[in-house]
């Protein structure tokens, strides 16, 4: 077993709840994170993801439930292990760098209680600063650094103690787009190199898909779905998951019948007589009125003369460098957004809109209860 694999720890959360006065921020959340997994908790503001992370960190005390880290109960019954004894590290949203300590001292902070000699600590500090690319800033103070540099210091500090679990609290949310992308790659690379288990929270689905081995989608204090990024994208458990992970459009449809296992034929509201095949998440009855969720990646645009597809008209087009994103009106007030094409279709131009079965889901949108898996 490699050094890094030995270091990673598993995390088990069982029936975790947290109340803030009358408000229930977490409601019976259970998650198992295997050692070495990069778990991303995805959810909108107020979904409970920060509360869950702070509960794991030991910053907040959950109202009930248990948390185990590396097989040791840290929260449960009357047990509450304080954060400093949980052997974990954390990157904060506001970086939480100590303004009175320079970069080197900020990074070296977690090493103060280690058994390393002074020379070893210094060497590790140098190594980390080198790895995150800020060795030339080691004597500077936090307020002399840019946002990206500050976040690199926070990342180096989290890696310094070589702990088995690293928590990330929306670490990229205060950065501009270029720096976000750059730092996202560094976080993914360095965390995996360190071999630690990671729990990362964000409200940005593209960030979640790019980083995660597993994604947990939270809403209103409940864990709605926990799965791989691929399954979250292709088989969203609920309408909320489908919406939150990005859709091009959503329409009411009438189920004509099942075509095969997990597939059904549905009629579209804006194109009478035209039916498409869509994926189903559960068994559905013919004749049911449900909703169709369409991923942008499952829609292609074609010339009006194309045989397949429904008629549409381009409302807007945006240049995206490698191609164009379109907004397409498909009739009866319905539209599809972010439809990519390498060819530019002009505003007002008529097109044919083609749907891919794998990226279209039929679901009962009223069913938002916690899914099982």
């Amino acid at each position, binding site marked *: 077993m490699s050094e890094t694999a030995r270091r990673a720890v598993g995390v*088990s959360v069982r029936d975790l709840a947290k109340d803030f006065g009358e408000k229930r921020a977490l409601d019976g959340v259970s998650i198992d994170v295997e050692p070495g997994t990069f778990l991303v908790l995805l959810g909108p503001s107020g979904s409970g993801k920060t509360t869950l992370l*702070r509960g794991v*960190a*030991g*910053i907040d*005390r959950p109202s009930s439930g248990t948390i*185990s880290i590396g*097989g*040791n*109960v*840290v929260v*449960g019954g*009357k*047990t*509450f*292990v*304080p*954060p*400093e*004894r*949980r052997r*974990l*590290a*954390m990157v*904060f*949203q*506001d*970086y*939480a*760098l*100590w*303004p*009175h*300590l*320079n970069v080197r*001292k900020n990074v070296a*902070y*977690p090493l*103060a*209680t280690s058994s390393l000699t002074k020379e070893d600590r210094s060497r590790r500090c140098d190594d980390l600063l080198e790895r995150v690319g800020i060795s030339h800033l080691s004597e500077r*103070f*936090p*307020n002399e650094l840019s*946002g990206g540099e*500050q976040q690199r210091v926070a990342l180096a*500090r*989290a890696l310094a*103690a070589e702990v088995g679990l690293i*928590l990330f609290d929306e670490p990229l949310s205060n950065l501009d787009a270029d720096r976000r992308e750059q730092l996202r790659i560094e976080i993914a690379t360095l965390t995996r190199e360190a071999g630690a288990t990671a729990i990362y929270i964000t409200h940005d689905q593209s960030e979640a898909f790019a980083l995660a081995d597993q994604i947990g989608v939270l809403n209103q204090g409940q864990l709605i779905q926990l799965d791989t990024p691929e399954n979250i994208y292709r088989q969203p458990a609920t309408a909320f998951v489908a919406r939150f992970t990005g859709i091009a459009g959503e329409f009411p449809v009438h189920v004509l019948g099942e075509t095969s296992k997990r597939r059904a034929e549905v009629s579209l509201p804006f194109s009478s007589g035209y039916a498409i095949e869509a994926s189903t998440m559960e068994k559905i009855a013919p004749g049911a009125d449900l909703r169709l969720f369409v991923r942008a990646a499952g829609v292609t645009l074609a010339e009006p003369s194309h045989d397949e597809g429904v008629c549409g008209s381009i409302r807007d087009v945006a240049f995206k460098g490698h191609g164009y994103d379109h907004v397409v009106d498909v009739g009866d007030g319905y539209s599809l957004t972010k439809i990519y094409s390498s060819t530019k279709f002009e505003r007002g131009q008529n097109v044919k809109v083609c749907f891919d079965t794998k990226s279209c889901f039929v679901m009962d949108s009223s069913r938002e209860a916690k899914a099982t898996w």
Partner: protein
Amino acid sequence: MAIAVLETTTPAAPPSTTRSKKRGSLGGVILWIVLFLLIIAPVGSFLILGVSPRVFQQGPQWFTLTYVRQAFSSYFGQGIFNSLWVSTIVAILSVCVATALAWLIHRTNVGGRRLWTVAMWLLLMMPTWMMTLGWGDLLQPFGAAQALGVNTHWIYGEFFGPMGIVIVLTSAALPFAYFIVSAGLQGLGPEFEDAARIHGAGPIRSLQTVLPIIAPALLSALAICFAETMSDFGVAFTLGYHSHFPMATYMLFNAISSFPANFSVAAVIAAVLIISVIPPIVLQSRVMRKRSYAVLSGRTRAPRRRELARGPRAVATTAVAGVFFVALGVPILGAVIGSLVKNLGIESPNGVHFTLTYYAQIFKPSIQGDSLGAPLLLSNQLGLVVATGTGVLAIILARRLIANPGSWSQRVTDVFLLGSVAVPGVVLGVGYIFFYNLGFISHNVVSLYKTLPLLMLALVANAVPGQTRFMAGPVSQIQPSLGDAARVHGAGRMRAWRTTNLPLMSRVLLWGWLLTFTKTIAELAISQILYPPSQEPASVSIQSYLANFAPNTGTAMTVLTLFEMLAVIGIALSVYRLVTPRGWRRVGFSGVQS
């Protein structure tokens, strides 16, 4: 999977939520018992005498308005009226001057910025009776100014009246307004000014645009200056008394000093003093509560300074220097020269002679019989104990004040502290005399009447509310994530506080301690009322010399006390500079200024 339990039974393990809550509530109960004995009981029991003297056997009536009418009658009423209008003028004047100073010092390249900040701290620490003494020594006939060849006869009469009182009290209120407005300005990013300038506003109009943004700070400054002026005793006891301009605090002192003591009238005056400052303080508190102070973190950026051209810079520097000369330079100059001129205030046919005789007399008295050595040592001991005790209590209260915002306990603490800030020292002193002399207390609980511990407790009680509010700003500016980060990265509760919060607050703690220390050394109202027999603090001893035909020696004592205070500040700051890491000194000064 076998699940082990980490350190649940070791003594070091943290308490369960229930145990922690119990400990928290027990701590809260103890804290409130302390505050009850320190402030609520003495002040409350004293105030009730205003309308119900029989409660504590001070008169036959269970309820009467006789003393209310008496307090508003000609002589006492004049004192209340004078205090109200003087305080209003002083508050407005000091906020206007302080706002201009704060803007020049923090937002422009005006010369001597560091010096002015230090001077403002000195002004904050200087008691009003010392200022009065300095002005008096300078302006009096055959005084310090005349010794330097400056004729001040024309202004002497004017100074010993409302004008002099307003000048001294405005000088004293200036630092309060300055530090509050400075904190507001420092939280105000340059983007607001930039936006105004970009959209066509000139320097004056952009300032007009920006100032309303710091309206809460201005309002707060007005309220605090009004409260400070209303509760001042030093000027009322010296300048007010000598110029026959009665003020409320002296009226109160007079009511309990006369024989027989009239506690009921004193209580009504005390109530008026407290009630008069509650509305502005509550108003500013309501406005301030809507603002967030959590701005001090690793990401804090300082606002940009406006670069003045050479001419305007010279004018601005001269103006700032002028303000400090009037507020600080004149009193110090007057006192220092006054202490060195032989027979100050007496015409001498042989001209002016300078002498060090009065300094020699301080420690070898020929008239009073008591040297300043013992009183000054006692004042330093009091300062040490009171500043340390106040610091500990204030930090506990400040943390309580910012923890759980909006909670019941936070609101009660907030209201209590607001109310306590409004209690003048003289009211507290009289309250202590009354409450701790009650038979029930002295026979059954604790006998502290006429003892040094009672004086210490009263001084702590006097300093705690202000010190807590002084600390609350900087404490609330520290992002909670800094402490959380330390805990998550392996630091225990104490180490996390010691390595993250303490460095960020170190300057505030130091300045807070120095402020209480120096204020205690020079404190007059409570000391005058509560000093134990034959244990006079320095301020009381000096007043005794000044009033008993040894004014020159009294002035020399004042100067020596002032320099001793400055020496302590200098030593403390030097030690801080020598022993603290560089990072500690880089942060927190903005916190101090709130």
